[in-house]
């Protein structure tokens, strides 16, 4: 059996090319990888780790260790070939050994003169001549010349062109990520013109879904997500940036502009809003708001992420390896790392941020209409504010204060004590001030007395139960108290068996880090709750009025509020019991009261409006006014002023104040509705950047300024060394890496593997290109066409290489399992998002809307909740979308980094915590379970079946044709049709016996069931459709 290594060599076709004198040995392809992988760690660029003073990563260094032409006189060869394992290099402690072939290669290389070249990727690509070919007919464009030349060298022949159906399906997935419709297939198949294929290419390149398709891998590179990622991992909005990327591809923005705007759009002269949005590329990294985290530590992480991501995406350079010490393989000094870092170390940001939405700096993006409304509101608010300026109302306000002070408590409406059955001040004693009942008896919970703005209150910080007494609640009564709800679990506030149950339901997050719950009031036969949530930890005056005539009313802060009537649970049936705060035991449903309560009053009559107003509004005045003016905190002064404006001032002023409050409320709502997106924004004075010893944020070394690694061309002379200069440097024609790295990734999208397999690493530890000349030709072509992205895609997909069939023979699979030689087209599974998009598309469920806020497709409950922190933060609870948002494309699925979309993860989607250049392509049983059982796919199968049954009527073979065509684009052959017809018949027989099962199956998903279709047939065909959607062919790009 062949070893893995020897197989690789065989594929590269090396042994056949090597002559004994070392001719045919290419240093960069054959020798450098051996030295780099096995020797550089101790004999490479890192001075601090260099052993015995020998370095093999430079020509001079290597020459000192060998004699060209004479391996036997070369220390390098003698040591790697040493007969004594203890003396042989690399030493056993490294865990590395050279194979016999590798030792032989080194021997031959030295024998042949030990030719030395700079690592290939650091040399500017030169446009190669097109190679001459024996077969003059096959090539359609330059790509094919290079591919075929290599095949001819390897004595292989290219495969035939794929059939049209396969070709269009391949092309559609590659350019839009969506399958062709049967009509599109028909058009192409019937088109006899010479340019039939090119017409399809142009059609697809012009599709709005082209931008989506191109954006998908870019989102992996940019580590795009909808949450901040660290710890609390709450919501962020970067979708305006994501939509910018889609637009940029659709508008065919040249790659150099695409680069400059994303890296430094904010620094362009007169930067437009779009260019600023684009600069968000480097704000996509994770951001922390863990309480207790140290800001300086995270500032360094953000900058490091930007610098490393930028190096990976544009240069496939493993910059991160030089963070703690000089790079062990590539010529990057630790200092180079921090000079690169310095470009990104001047953003006006905080180390800890992102607690409530986006982190600074961000850009608000009002629509034209929103801006108009905003301007209008601002103007009106300003006018009202000046009308109500304190200097204008102060004399009257102070006058009132004096008058009120003289009155103090005595402004209570006459008769306020009439009908007062019991009054508990809740000042920590539980005494009943009416004297009619016994004092409250605390059975559970530890009451403490606290001062509040309404005077003393009792705080129960754990679930409580305090019995007040057997207070009879007759036909007419009122209960009033100040309440603060202090815990998110549902809890009983007040309860009297047989009469009354007042409780909070579970509190839920509200915007701006608040939580709130509804207040419920149940009486025999009646259950009301507030329509809106009352904010947790805020103090409310709550009054419940019960009258024989009018039923139950809830007043909050003296005002009637909207209520919702709910089904009575019956908890208040039965004998009247004692009135109590909280409840005896915590149950699954509810806990005892936790929070604050003050001035609890029970009346045997309905309170009047003016009494309610007094209790809720005026009642607190004495407490506020009793503080001498000079000792008043700012907040208290403000509250008094507001009280005056709302309740005391002349009617006209009160109206103006009411208007101002309403305007402010409207502005707050508008502000919430205006999207924003994080952007780059420079500090006035950039931070100093230092080399960080061992990469530790606390350990400052030498101070450095922004610059680029010496092995690459210098920054433009005279330019200010900032991000803009860096971006322009990357797309300068002299730069050896950018164009190669970009075209290589495009290649990877189409063929599964790049010409350089290690598309994330073009350094010495990366893989050598399979077709170096082709890579350089494409890179120079990209530059020559002024970085025309669509033209590059067009070039690749119109090549004969791309148009080959992906059918392999056992011999070819064995010879070239990875398809590096391209004697066929690669065949591989669709990426995670596309597996789902395809099922939605063929069933007709797909919502093709482009861009916008991210959505929440079906996901089993608990995936987020089991791991998230919860509390007041956003993106802690998964709330499924409704309606057509359920069927948006996978790329719009809300990406929570600590719990990414579960069914996409199963298909190898990354968590987006870091830049990802290549996804794995695995094949697992969990994928099978997802495609078979996830409601997304069952619903898609059912809707597909529904459409097919409607269209085909009762003819089973027609149904089959339609369904098969929708899923695969083609017509099934006899054997396939037979397998599926038999399945359909068997499933029909099953569901004929199991009507309930049939109904259950077709009821999955939100899409309504077509009631006109027979349930049995629909269920059976749903399963046939499931089998179709599970076929390898259905989820594979062939």
């Amino acid at each position, binding site marked *: *059996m062949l070893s893995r290594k020897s197989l690789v060599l065989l594929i590269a076709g090396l042994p056949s090319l090597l002559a004994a004198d070392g001719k045919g040995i290419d240093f960069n392809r054959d020798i450098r990888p051996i030295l780099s992988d096995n020797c550089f760690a101790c004999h490479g660029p890192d001075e601090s780790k260099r052993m015995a003073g020998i370095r093999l990563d430079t020509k001079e260094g290597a020459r000192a260790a060998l004699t060209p032409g004479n391996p036997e006189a070369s220390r390098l060869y003698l040591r790697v070939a040493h007969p004594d394992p203890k003396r042989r290099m690399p030493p056993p402690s490294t*865990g590395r050994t050279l194979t016999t072939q590798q030792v032989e290669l080194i021997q031959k290389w030295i024998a042949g003169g030990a030719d030395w070249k700079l690592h290939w990727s650091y040399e500017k690509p030169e446009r190669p001549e097109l190679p001459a070919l024996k077969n003059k007919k096959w090539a359609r464009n330059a790509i094919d010349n290079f591919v075929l030349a290599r095949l001819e060298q390897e004595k292989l022949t290219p495969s035939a062109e794929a059939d049209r159906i396969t070709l269009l399906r391949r092309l559609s997935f590659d350019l839009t990520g969506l399958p062709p419709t049967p009509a599109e297939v028909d058009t192409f198949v019937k088109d006899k013109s010479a340019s039939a294929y090119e017409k399809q290419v142009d059609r697809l390149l012009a599709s709005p879904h082209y931008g989506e398709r191109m954006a998908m891998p870019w989102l992996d590179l940019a580590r795009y997500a909808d949450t901040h*990622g660290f*710890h609390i991992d709450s919501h962020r909005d970067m979708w305006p940036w994501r939509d910018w990327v889609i637009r940029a591809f659709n508008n065919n923005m040249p790659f150099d502009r695409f680069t400059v705007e994303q890296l430094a759009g904010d620094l362009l002269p007169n930067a437009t809003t779009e260019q600023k949005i684009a600069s968000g590329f480097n704000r996509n990294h*994770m951001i922390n708001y*863990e*309480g*207790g*985290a140290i800001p300086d530590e995270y500032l360094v992480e953000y900058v490091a992420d930007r610098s490393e991501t930028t190096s*990976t995406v544009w240069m496939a350079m493993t910059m991160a390896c030089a963070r703690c010490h000089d790079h062990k*393989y*590539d010529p990057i000094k630790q200092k180079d790392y921090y000079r690169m870092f310095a470009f990104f170390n001047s953003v006006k940001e905080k180390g800890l941020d992102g607690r409530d939405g986006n982190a600074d700096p961000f850009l608000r993006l009002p629509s034209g209409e929103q801006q108009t409304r905003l301007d209008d509101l601002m103007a009106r608010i300003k006018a009202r504010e000046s009308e109500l300026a304190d200097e204008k109302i102060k004399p009257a306000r102070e006058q009132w204060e004096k008058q009120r002070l003289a009155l103090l408590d005595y402004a209570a409406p006459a008769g306020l004590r009439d009908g007062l059955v019991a009054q508990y001040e809740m000042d920590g004693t539980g005494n009943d001030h009416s004297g009619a009942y016994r004092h409250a008896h605390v059975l559970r919970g530890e009451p403490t007395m606290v001062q509040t703005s309404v005077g003393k209150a009792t705080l129960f910080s754990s679930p409580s139960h305090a019995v007040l007494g057997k207070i009879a609640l007759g036909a007419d009564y009122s209960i009033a108290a100040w309440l603060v709800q202090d815990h998110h679990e549902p809890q009983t506030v007040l309860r009297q068996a047989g009469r009354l149950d007042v409780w909070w339901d579970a509190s839920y997050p509200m915007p701006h880090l608040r939580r709130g719950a509804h207040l419920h009031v149940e009486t025999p036969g009646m259950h009301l709750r507030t329509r809106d949530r009352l904010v947790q930890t805020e103090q409310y005056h709550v009054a419940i009025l019960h009258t024989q005539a009018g039923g139950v009313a809830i007043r909050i802060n003296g005002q009637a509020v909207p209520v919702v009537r709910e089904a009575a649970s019956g908890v208040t049936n039965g004998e009247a019991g004692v009135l109590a705060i909280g409840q005896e035991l915590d149950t699954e449903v509810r806990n005892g009261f936790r929070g604050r309560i003050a001035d609890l009053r029970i009346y045997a009559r309905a309170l009047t409006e003016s009494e309610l107003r007094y209790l809720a509004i005026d009642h607190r005045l004495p407490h506020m006014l009793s503080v001498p003016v000079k000792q008043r905190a700012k907040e208290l002064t403000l509250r008094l002023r507001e009280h005056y404006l709302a309740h005391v001032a002349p009617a006209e002023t009160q109206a103006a104040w009411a208007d101002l409050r309403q305007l402010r409320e409207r502005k707050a709502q508008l502000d919430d509705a205006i999207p924003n997106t994080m952007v780059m924004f420079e500090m006035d004075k950039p931070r100093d950047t230092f080399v960080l010893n061992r990469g530790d944020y606390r350990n400052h070394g030498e101070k450095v300024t922004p610059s680029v690694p010496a092995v690459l061309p210098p920054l433009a002379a005279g330019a200010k060394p900032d991000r803009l200069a860096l971006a322009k440097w990357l797309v300068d024609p002299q730069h050896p890496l950018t164009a190669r790295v970009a075209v290589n990734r495009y290649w990877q999208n189409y063929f599964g593997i790049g010409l350089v*397999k*290690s598309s*994330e*690493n073009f350094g*010495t530890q990366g893989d050598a290109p399979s077709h170096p000349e082709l890579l350089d030709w494409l890179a120079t072509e990209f530059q020559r066409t002024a970085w025309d992205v669509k033209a590059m895609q067009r070039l690749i997909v119109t090549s004969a290489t791309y148009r080959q069939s992906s*059918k*392999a023979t056992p011999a070819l*699979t*064995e010879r070239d*399992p*990875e*398809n590096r030689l391209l004697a066929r087209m690669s065949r*591989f*599974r669709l990426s995670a998002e596309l597996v789902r998009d395809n099922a939605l598309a063929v069933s007709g469920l797909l919502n093709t809307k482009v861009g916008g806020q991210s959505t929440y497709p079906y996901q089993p409950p*608990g995936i987020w909740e089991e*791991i998230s*922190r919860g509390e007041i933060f956003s993106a802690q609870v998964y709330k499924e979308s409704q309606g057509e948002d359920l069927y948006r494309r996978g790329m719009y699925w809300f990406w929570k*980094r*600590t719990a990414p979309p*579960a069914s996409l993860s199963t298909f*190898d989607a990354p968590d987006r*915590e870091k830049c990802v250049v*290549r996804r*794995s*392509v*695995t*094949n697992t*049983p*969990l994928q*099978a*379970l*997802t495609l*078979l*059982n996830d409601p997304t796919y069952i619903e898609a199968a059912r809707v597909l079946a529904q459409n097919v049954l409607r269209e085909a009527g009762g003819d089973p073979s027609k149904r089959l044709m339609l369904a098969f065509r929708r899923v695969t684009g083609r017509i099934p052959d006899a054997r*396939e049709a037979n397998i599926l017809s038999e*399945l359909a018949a068997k499933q029909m027989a*099953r569901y004929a016996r*199991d009507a309930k*099962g049939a109904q*259950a199956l077709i*009821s999955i998903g939100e899409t309504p069931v077509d009631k006109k279709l027979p349930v049995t047939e629909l269920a059976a065909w749903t*399963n046939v459709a499931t*089998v179709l959607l*599970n*076929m*390898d*062919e259905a989820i*594979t790009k062939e």
Partner: protein
Amino acid sequence: MNWKREMQLLETRRQFFGKGARGVSVAALASLMGNAAPAGGQPGVPHFAAKAKRVIWLHQSGGPSQLDLFDYKPQLKKYHGSELPGSIRMGQRITGMTSGQSSFPCAASIFKFEQAGKAGMWMSELIPHHKKIADDICLIKSVHTDAINHDPAITFIQTGSQQPGRPSIGSWVSYGLGSETQELPSFVVLLSQQNSVRADQPLFSRLWGAGFLPSHYQGVRLRSGKDPVLYLADPAGIEREGRREMLDALQALNRKREEAYHDPEIDTRIQQYEMAYKMQASVPDLTDFSKEPASTFELYGEDARKPGTYAANCLMARRLVERGVRFVQLYHKGWDQHGNLPQDLALQCKASDQGAAALVRDLKQRGMLDDTLVVWGGEFGRTVYCQGKLTDTDYGRDHHPRNFCMWMAGGGVKRGFQMGETDDYSYNIVRDPVHIHDIQATLLHCLGVDHTKLTYKFQGRWFRLTDVHGNVVKSVLA
């Protein structure tokens, strides 16, 4: 079956995507050949004879207070309420939560300690069940970490790096050693549901993620409820026989495609569907506790009957390793006692003490403790100084990375053994420091893996769990 051809196909599969179909397809291949031998690991791994074949890691998320559980400091009573001396603190960094405090008064533990086992391990009254396993565990009182806050600390202990992006320890192990079961994932994650303690520390899927390893090495969450594995259950309306019919048709269609395309991935996919079908039977069998005898619930406590509790998950862990699962990673939240420690820690221990002890005893009575390694511990310890108000009955403790306690039990480590010592304040290690990377190296060592040799090349560098650090803690090895 042509064995050579199969191996070539397998090689093909691996080659194709580089980071391609491996562990699982190898398992599929093994089943194809009727071969039940371990499959899918790396060549040459284990590097030497393994003492442990599998691991159960009971991660106590939040940072249990070593001062109130294992690190007995009677002298602290004297210093209770007095300022932590500068000579002890030595200017070490502290979190943003207490850095603003004007004073750092020492808080002695309010709990009683007793010695247990032959080694005389001190344990507090909060963990009575642990006393019963004192002769089975190896207690390390001098573990230290680099991180001071939850996110980086838990990421560090689970992936060897404070920053996201590296593979988790479970994925490294399953990458290195492969799977021993064809019907369950080799790396399973259990999250215990909350008890009465306020447990606000989030977890992150990266903690069981595969990082840059092929993504099928990531841990599979086993959840309580209808679908312990995501989408395990057939949908309503599909019976087993009906499902089988569907799979047979699917297989026939896929076989046909394979004949035309000669793509080994198609064959792998067929195998994956068969494994999925098997899992649909094996997982419900796994999660069905009804056949466990009454003695099991005496051992683990009645809580173990309630799916998702810590006790139930400890029992589940035993059932998983019995069935050949390589790495069980359990998370138990709620150890982050910044305030209200005496009350909340007591509740937390009450919910977890018995389960952990029962697991060790259960494995022992089944003879499985010899080749199963159980690890218990949090991501850091807690400070001797009080966070918030110190009263006679109440105190809180902030995060403390400089020393904390972990224990291991079973395959490869000494039993009834303790090591490491801290100063009188449990603030600094005075003897035998053990770094997180050392813990990781030691765990791999017990599995027969040289932590410097289990590597994966990514971005041109050979990465390993312990980065460039870590020493096997020889003194704990049996």
